């Protein structure tokens, strides 16, 4: 098949294929919007230029019943253990007040930590595992054992080598120790050292920051950008600068804690719409405009919509075209947090804006982090020059937080130049394509095997549903025995019945590594009985052929 895409200046020019020309001649223009071939589930008239397929399959009912049964048994035994601890039949390992302060107002609310004490402690060895190498496609783990059922750990001194890494956010594989790749970073480290010892407003703005900000602005196709030292702080410290009392924030149900914290700190009114649900968002927008502020009925000073590019717990991609059309219709602002999607989706890795073929002018505030796809640390906010200039003076992070350190800035510069092709190679584009291939392969195989996977077919975050609390611990431990490191998530971060294992596919994973992981998953899925899907694709292999373009390898 001929390759219709041409690479020019790091931007991919799409040949908009004029398929169905005969059909198109019969399509009329309505309100200036041409209705193209409609896809299922699109109600707004905005055309998604490619298939938008998301899966959120529900497990059979008995799974939910058994999950609750498991939690019930755990709770009963929790009460039993708490009773024994209270009556001195068992040693207390949790924080307690000093003897002299027993009559004071209690410092530690025992019951609040019930879940942590009785359920989390039992499987705690699957989290906070210390690693001792770079978190590339494989890493080394420090072996630790526990003598008292996970209350304390001790290191045996041995190191488990070459554990396949399915948990690190290393989407493009830039977390590497290759000396050639890190040449410029070493030079900058020797030139600047590591400490900045100042904030951006005082003496902490280096020429590296200016260079980086210009590069980020060029990469994203916007007027200006500003970088911060920490990704979480970018969200939580900049949203209060943009909105205040009298403004309205419409935030997605499943937004990240940094967005929630920023929204709460700002003092604006927060309303939540259902996850990725455009009808819910439209209802909220209409109510906000019709009824105004709660008691005075005045118009809202500003209405801002907070969404993320890829939601890391679900693997779903935001419905950007519909949101942009809604925001234009109701005159609201859009804040897009591309923490997981910058570098990971889009034909040249420029995020969800490119993935949907839209222009970055449609989004008012583009935010992202460098932690995930660039192998560094920090975040950025990009948009119009006026916006960024305002943030330079009014954002808490800019005024009080220490700025990004120079070697890290250089790592981002070299990663971005690699992605844009400015270093003279096509390595960046190859990485993006490799990530896309790995993602599609991994998801397809998991669907065929019969697991329940959430999320969009193009997102590199793959949540595999486990449901039962007993299986969380068993899954993580057995995968480690097979030398594969996974991240499992349970109750407070996910709904109580939907605990999951979250895989992050990386461009650095080779086909063999993915096959090893898939075989291990197959075996483990049979042993733990995790294949709940009722729509496994293997019965129709010819219908799910790859139709997208791929480089020959």
């Amino acid at each position, binding site marked *: 098949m001929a390759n219709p895409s041409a690479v020019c200046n790091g931007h991919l020019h799409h040949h908009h294929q004029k398929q169905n020309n005969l059909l198109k001649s019969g399509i009329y223009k309505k309100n200036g919007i041409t209705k193209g071939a409609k896809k299922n589930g699109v109600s707004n008239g905005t055309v998604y230029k490619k298939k938008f397929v998301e899966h959120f399959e529900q497990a059979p009912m008995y799974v939910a019943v058994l999950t609750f049964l498991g939690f019930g*048994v755990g709770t009963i035994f929790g009460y039993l253990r708490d009773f024994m601890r209270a009556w001195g039949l068992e040693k207390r390992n949790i924080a307690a007040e000093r003897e002299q302060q027993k009559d004071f107002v209690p410092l530690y609310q025992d019951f609040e930590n019930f879940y942590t004490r009785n359920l989390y402690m039992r499987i705690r060895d699957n989290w906070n595992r210390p690693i001792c190498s770079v978190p590339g496609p494989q890493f080394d783990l420090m072996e630790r054992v526990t003598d008292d059922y996970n209350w304390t750990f001790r290191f045996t001194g041995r190191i488990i080598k070459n554990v396949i890494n399915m948990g690190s956010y290393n989407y493009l594989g830039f977390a590497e120790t290759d000396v050639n790749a890190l040449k410029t970073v070493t030079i900058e480290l020797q030139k600047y050292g590591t400490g900045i010892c100042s904030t951006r407003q005082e003496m902490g703005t280096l020429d590296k920051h200016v260079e980086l900000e210009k590069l980020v602005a060029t990469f994203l196709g916007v007027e200006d950008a500003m970088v911060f030292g920490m990704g979480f702080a970018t969200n939580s410290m900049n949203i209060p600068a943009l909105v205040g009392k009298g403004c309205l924030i419409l935030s997605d149900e499943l937004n990240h804690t940094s967005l929630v914290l920023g929204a709460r700190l700002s003092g604006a009114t927060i309303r939540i719409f259902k996850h990725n649900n455009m009808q819910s968002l439209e209802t909220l927008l209409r109510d906000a405009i019709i009824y105004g502020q709660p008691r005075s009925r005045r118009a809202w000073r500003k209405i801002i919509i907070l969404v993320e590019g890829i939601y890391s717990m679900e693997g779903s991609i935001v419905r950007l075209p519909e949101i942009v059309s809604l925001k234009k219709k109701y005159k609201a602002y859009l804040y897009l947090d591309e923490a997981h999607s910058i570098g990971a989706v889009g034909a040249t890795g420029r995020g969800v804006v490119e993935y949907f073929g839209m222009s970055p002018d449609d989004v008012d505030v583009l935010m992202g982090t460098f932690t995930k796809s660039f192998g560094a640390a920090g975040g950025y906010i990009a948009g119009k020059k006026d916006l960024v200039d305002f943030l330079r003076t009014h954002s808490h992070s800019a005024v009080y937080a220490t700025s990004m350190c120079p070697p890290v800035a250089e790592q981002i510069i070299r990663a971005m130049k690699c992605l844009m092709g400015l270093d003279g190679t096509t390595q960046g584009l190859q990485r993006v394509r490799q990530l896309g291939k790995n993602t599609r392969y991994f998801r397809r195989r998991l669907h065929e095997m019969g697991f329940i996977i959430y999320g969009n077919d193009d997102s590199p975050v793959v949540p595999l549903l486990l449901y039962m609390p007993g299986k969380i611990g068993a899954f993580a431990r057995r995968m480690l025995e097979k030398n594969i490191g996974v991240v499992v998530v349970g109750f407070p971060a996910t709904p109580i019945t939907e605990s999951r294992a979250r895989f992050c596919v990386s461009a650095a994973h080779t086909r063999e590594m993915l096959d090893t992981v898939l075989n291990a998953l197959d075996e483990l899925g049979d042993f733990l009985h995790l294949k709940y899907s009722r729509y496994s694709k293997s019965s129709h292999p010819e219908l799910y052929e790859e139709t997208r373009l791929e480089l020959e390898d």
Partner: protein
Amino acid sequence: MDIKSMKNYLYWLYCQFELITCSYLMEPWEKVLFYTFNITMLVMMLYTTYIFVPVHISTAFQFFLHLFGNQHENTVSVVK
């Protein structure tokens, strides 16, 4: 060979039971407590079934026969 696969299957079933009821996470003494409780309940239930169900079934059988006509009354022997 059949015995081996049967044993493997039973072991697998036992593992499923452990995972579903979270007894996989319990310390050994908790497991003992839990299994004792479960087995006691199960044995009591089976004993109750053994004592009461045959009587109830035969009474019900008799009742339905009476309802649908009396011709077979002589052939039914009631176990007291």
